[in-house]
Each structure stands twice: as structure tokens, then as C-alpha cells.
């Protein structure tokens, strides 16, 4: 750890650029909402509304004001944590997101953990035995991950493990009989059920999670192992590896003690982006597995032209991405002495 004046200045820079990006995102979502060929007033009052009712709703929504005033209003609302209401259900968008996002977090995080736990060792092994069989396994998985669509893999997995073998339960996060046994605290069923001592529910939730997480995890493994392999190979070409060999260290120890730590910095960025991509809501995977997460929510909102819901979701995805990126950036500056000068 290396904390001094330069460090704080760097951190301030990172934070500042995150804020600028965030502001850009807000402006973008605002204008997308105004450019969409959907009349939000009509969505609120319905097709058969009278002229007067239409005009009243228009004024309620603030759409008679100038574009600039609307933007200010929009920003004010967001600062107060108000993303508007769903046209479809009248729910507050914020409440909807609070309900669906934890499901996605649970799925995405588990998939990413699978990706890291298998991908990093596999990629390292592939690099150490370049053109040996671990390398071929990694390459095969890489090709699989890049060429096989998620919906196909998901359906095949369901066909085999649910329909034929019956070893995993069907759609959703828990079986219907367990539904409502756990009160929402963090929203992550795995965590909530453990905190409330509901081991049954926890087991059931794990069995529900395992198949979609593995399907998504395969894509994670493909990406992370390929990147790890490249990073390790690049490090192995560095002269300090020769120094370590001259010192009398064996290759295994060199890779574990010197090479891998030097790739962590680049890996953190890859892993953060990977997690970010999954947190957008794996629309196809969530749809196939009936997983009530952000992807499924966004898909349904899109099909119903629920502008507020879509924009709220977009904003959430954007903010998540900015946070992850900023976190990775900050971590990189803390961990790597090369980034400090």
C-alpha cells in the first residue's frame, strides 16, 4: 500500500472522471426518453382519454415546460431517488429495480465467481504448458464461449438436466412452496435465507441457481481463461522471469509468486468488465430460466413500451458499470507500483 499526496490526487482524478461519465449518462438517458417515438402522456391516460384529461396529464408530467426546465426537473427527481412510475403497473421504478436487481446480482456474481475460480487457473495452466493439452482445453472452451449462443446452451442444459435427468428444479429462484418464507433483507436469497436460518430455502435456492449460473459461468470461463493466458504469456516473456530462473527458482514457483501477481492488475479490469456485462442482465439466460432479474424485467418493459422502466433500468446498468470501472481503476492504482509514477 502506498498512500501519499500523489495517491490522493490520482484518486480524485478517477472520481472526477467517474462523475463526468455519470453526468453524461444522465443527459443521454434524458434525451433518449424525449426522442423515443412513444407518447408518454398517451401511455398514462390511455387511448380513449379526452382532450382535457390529456392536457392535464401532459402538465402533470411537466412536458409543457421547456426542454431545459425538463432536464433540471429530471435531474432533481433522480437526486431524490425518484425514477418515476411504471406506465404498466404504476409501481415506483425504484421499487421494481430493488426487487429485480438483487436476483441479477446473485446470478451474475455466482457466474463470475465460477469464471474466476476456473478461468484463472485454466488460463495460467494453458500458458505454462503452451500448446500442451491444458492449452487445447482452454482454447476449446474459448471457442465454445464465443460461438455458442447462450439461449441454445441454456435450453440444451435445461433439456438434459431438468427434463431428462431431473436433477435440477425448474424456473425461478426458489420452488413455489418456499416462496415468501424468507423476508427480503439484502434481496439475495442465498444470503437472506442463511441469515434467517432457513437452510431448506438456502438449499433450494442453490439448486435453482446452479444451472443458469453454470451456463453464464461457461462464458465467463471462456473469456477470463483466454485473457489470463495472454497476460501470463506476456509476463513470461519479461526479463525478470529470466532473473528469477537465474536465482534458482523453479517455473512453477515463478508463475505463482512473481508472474501471477503481476497479471492481477490487468485481470481485475477484465473481471470487473465481465461482471459488469453480466449485471446488465443476461436477457436470454434470464428469459430461458425464468429468472426474475433485471434482464427479464427490461425485456418485458421493452415489449410493453414501458419507457420509464427501460430508462430506469438503463440508468442502473450505466451506474453499475461506472462503479465497477472506477473500482477497478482505483484498485489498479493501489496495487500496482507501476501506475504510481
Amino acid at each position, binding site marked *: 500500500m502506498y498512500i501519499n499526496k500523489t495517491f490522493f490526487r490520482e484518486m480524485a482524478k478517477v472520481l472526477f472522471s467517474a462523475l463526468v461519465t455519470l453526468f453524461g449518462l444522465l443527459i443521454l438517458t434524458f434525451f433518449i426518453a424525449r426522442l423515443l417515438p412513444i407518447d408518454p402522456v398517451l401511455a398514462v391516460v390511455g387511448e380513449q382519454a379526452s382532450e382535457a384529461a390529456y392536457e392535464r396529464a401532459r402538465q402533470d408530467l411537466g412536458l409543457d415546460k421547456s426542454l431545459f426546465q425538463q432536464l433540471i426537473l429530471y435531474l432533481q427527481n433522480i437526486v431524490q431517488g425518484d425514477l418515476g412510475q411504471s406506465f404498466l403497473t404504476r409501481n415506483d421504478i425504484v421499487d421494481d429495480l430493488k426487487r429485480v436487481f438483487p436476483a441479477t446480482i446473485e446470478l451474475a456474481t455466482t457466474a463470475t465467481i465460477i469464471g474466476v475460480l476456473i478461468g484463472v487457473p485454466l488460463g495460467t495452466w494453458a500458458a505454462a504448458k*503452451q500448446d500442451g493439452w491444458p492449452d487445447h482445453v482452454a482454447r476449446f472452451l474459448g471457442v465454445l464461449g464465443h460461438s455458442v449462443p447462450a439461449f441454445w446452451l441454456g435450453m440444451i442444459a435445461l433439456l438434459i438436466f431438468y427434463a431428462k435427468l431431473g436433477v435440477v428444479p425448474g424456473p425461478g429462484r426458489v420452488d413455489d412452496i418456499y416462496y415468501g418464507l424468507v423476508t427480503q433483507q439484502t434481496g439475495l436469497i442465498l444470503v437472506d435465507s442463511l441469515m434467517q436460518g432457513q437452510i431448506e430455502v438456502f438449499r433450494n435456492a442453490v439448486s435453482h441457481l446452479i444451472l443458469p449460473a453454470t451456463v453464464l459461468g461457461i462464458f465467463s470461463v471462456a473469456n477470463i481463461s483466454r485473457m489470463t493466458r495472454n497476460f501470463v504469456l506476456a509476463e513470461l516473456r519479461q526479463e525478470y522471469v529470466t*532473473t528469477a530462473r*537465474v*536465482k*534458482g527458482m523453479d517455473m512453477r514457483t515463478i508463475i505463482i509468486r512473481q508472474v501471477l501477481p503481476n497479471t492481477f492488475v490487468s485481470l481485475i479490469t477484465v473481471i470487473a468488465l465481465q461482471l459488469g456485462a453480466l449485471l446488465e442482465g443476461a436477457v436470454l439466460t434470464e428469459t430461458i430460466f425464468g429468472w426474475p432479474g433485471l434482464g427479464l424485467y427490461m425485456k418485458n418493459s421493452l415489449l410493453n413500451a414501458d419507457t420509464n422502466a427501460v430508462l430506469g433500468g438503463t440508468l442502473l446498468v450505466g451506474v453499475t458499470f461506472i462503479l465497477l470501472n472506477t473500482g477497478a481503476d482505483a484498485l489498479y492504482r493501489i496495487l*500496482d507500483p*507501476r501506475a504510481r509514477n
Partner: protein
Amino acid sequence: MNRSANDGMNNLIEVENLRVSFRTRLGEESEVLHGISFNVGHEKLGIVGESGSGKSITARSILRIMPPGSSTTADSISFKGRELTTLSEKEMCKFRGKHISMIMQDPKYSLNPTMRIGDQIAEMLRLHTKIGKKEALDRSLAALESVHMRDPERVMRAYPLELSGGMGQRVMIAMMLITAPGLLIADEPTSALDVSVQLQILSLLDELVTKSNMGLMFISHALHMVSSFCDRVIVMYKGNIVETCAASELANATHPYTRRLLDATETI
């Protein structure tokens, strides 16, 4: 040929018929070292030759740290009478660094950028001796003092890129000599340094090699530097040794390639 300086039992390392070849992309074998034999005693032996003449390959094949795709054969490589060609990779790991170590061209790249200097030196010691971390660090600090490092306490905690080239090379020397090896290979140790710093590093090497009576294999393309710094010189050309002589007699060398090298230096 003048080999009177190191005859018989005084040799640290004896190399016989060392051959190295690389497999090309087309699958053909291409020999880059054509069966050279030489020995190094308790002396400063210079190895000169143009780029690609096989100087570095010679050093690296002795330490067996060759890149993949290469193959090395030798009738014998023996260090203080111990045959190295028959050692397993595991035994070789215990040997490297303890008996023969090497410093490289540019300390900017040869030190691990994310490890503190002190840890890198201590690591060398802990690979070959059974001592605790605290003691290893203490001895590392002493090693930095022995290479006349200014402000050694600060350097212990520093990362490589906080050091100048000359300081980095001092760190490499301190690290590579901390196990008191019998032979040090210096592969172009001054080529990446400023001219003023080059002389300091040379005189440091000279001081330490003389003090501990070890052997030094000094690889360089700078003929004038080798002739004034070393005791004996081997001239390599296209994977062969073309001349071996005392450094003082280099000016009277007879081989046409050596003459051309000397002439080239003089005209500059």
C-alpha cells in the same frame, strides 16, 4: 594462444563441445553454437563478438535457461569437477544462483517491477539458505551496503522504477552475489547505462570479484572495454570461438575476424 593464466585444477568451469540449435518454424534444425570448448578459472574472462555471435547463448546454455524450441548438447559442462549436463531440472534449480549467477543488460527489465527491492534480494537468499525473513532482510541490507549503495534503507523499500539504471545494476549485483557464487556471468552489464555510470559499475565488479576470488564471465561487444578490464579474452564469431588470448595481447591477435574487429574499433 595463452592459457598459462588458468591451467588444470584451477578451472572453475570447463565446457567441452557445447552445441546449441533452434528449431525453425519450418521444423528444420538450425545450429547457432557449433561445438565450442573453453574454461573459466578464478579470473575475469571477456567474451566478445558481434550481435548473434553466440555470446549470450553460451552463458544461458551453461545455466540451462534457454527459450523453448532450443536444444543443447555438450560432451561435458563441469563446475568445480561436478558434471552439470546430467543434473535434473530440480537439481539445476538448486545449483543456479548458488554456484553460478548472472546479471543482465538492463536492470529496468531484469528486476520484478511490483516487488520491493529488499524482498527481491531476500528471496534469493531464502531460495538457497534456511533462514528467517527478518535475517534475510538484514543480510540484504548488508549486501546493498557492500555494493556502496547510497541510502540503502530507502532502496530496500523502493520499487525498481524508483531507481536509476546504475542503482538498479548495483541491486542486481548485490542480489546475485549474496549467495557467494563461484562464478558470475555478466551479460552486457553496462550497455544500458550512461558512460559515467559504466565505469563505476566496472570498478565495483572488479572490486567484488577480486575480493572474493571468484570467476567472472564478462560478455560484451565493446572490445576496448574488455581488453582493459579483463584478464583473458575469447573472441566469438558465428557460433565459434575464433581466438583466445590474454587481454594484454589482444592487439597482436592474428585471426582475421579479430583483426577486423580491432581495425573497426580503431577507425572509430
